């Protein structure tokens, strides 16, 4: 296979895992560097901007809490798109993508829950309350754990892919519930103040570090997702080659 045939000209070309590995090898170092720069700028802004007149310094927790919460929902959306790719187009990398995103989503959801709790205690006077927003995000966390457990409990990867994809799509109903929970129900959690139809209601002083940190977290997610997909492709190749070696050894006897 010449290098020329590995050129990626359209999305469907990524269906070839060898092409994907070549692209990942080129992308990962760049993405990792961009992530580090974005975090350096984001953290600098997070700790140098002014505190809130009411919340004081605790507003700084927002710069990790909100991006992690966005990522927890974006990651599930990436998994849902991958699930459609598995079920509709039988894209060979869609299942790899969904499988590798689940642990990342669980980690970002855990960050959102922990930092939210640490913000809630000084501001609301409680670590936790079973209101609609907090409960729906906790359910999202449990769903990620369930999907990871399902992937690990099935030996046949193609069957695990199809069952997992159906479960991901059924669970997607939770994403709009999380987003609109603060509008549909009376919650202790505040309503949206950045992604709104009438524009952000948050002061530019807080919006700047928040957006830079959101970009940093998103870059971190894509870096880790591409690296984890590459690892999964390698894992499947190792398994396939071991089976081949076992068959060859069986024939020689």
């Amino acid at each position, binding site marked *: 296979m010449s290098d020329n045939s590995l050129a990626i000209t359209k999305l469907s070309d990524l269906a070839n895992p060898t092409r994907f590995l070549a692209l990942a090898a080129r992308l990962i170092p760049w993405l990792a560097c961009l992530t580090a720069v974005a975090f350096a700028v984001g953290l600098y802004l997070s700790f140098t901007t002014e505190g809130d007149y009411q919340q004081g310094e605790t507003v700084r927790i927002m710069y990790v809490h909100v991006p992690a919460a966005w990522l927890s929902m974006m990651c599930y959306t990436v998994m849902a798109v991958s699930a459609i790719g598995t079920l509709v187009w039988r894209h060979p990398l869609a299942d790899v993508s969904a499988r590798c995103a689940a642990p990342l989503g669980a980690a970002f959801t855990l960050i959102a829950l922990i930092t939210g709790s640490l913000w809630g205690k000084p501001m609301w006077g409680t670590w936790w309350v079973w209101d609609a927003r907090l409960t729906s995000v906790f359910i999202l966390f449990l769903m990620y754990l369930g999907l990871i457990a399902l992937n690990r409990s099935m030996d046949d990867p193609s069957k695990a892919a199809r069952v997992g994809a159906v479960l991901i799509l059924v669970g997607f109903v939770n994403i709009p519930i999380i987003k609109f929970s603060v509008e549909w129900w009376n919650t202790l959690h505040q309503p949206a103040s950045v992604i709104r139809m009438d524009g952000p209601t948050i002061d530019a002083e807080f919006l700047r570090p928040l957006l830079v940190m959101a970009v940093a977290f998103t870059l*971190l997610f894509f870096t*880790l997702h591409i*690296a984890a997909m590459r690892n999964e492709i390698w894992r499947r190749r190792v398994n396939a*080659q071991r089976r081949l070696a076992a068959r060859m050894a069986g024939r020689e006897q």
Partner: protein
Amino acid sequence: MGHAFYIYTAYGLTTLIVAALVAWTWLDGRARQRELAALDAAGIRRRSARSPGETKA
């Protein structure tokens, strides 16, 4: 407890979780590369990676 406790615990735990994710991805990749190299050294290659002279498995 002062506000600083909540802020630094939030950032500290976030750093810990992110560091664990990065380390896990990194170490997983290295382990898989070692396995592929070991298989390659044992002469077990993918069909596409085999030279034309090699016999079919």
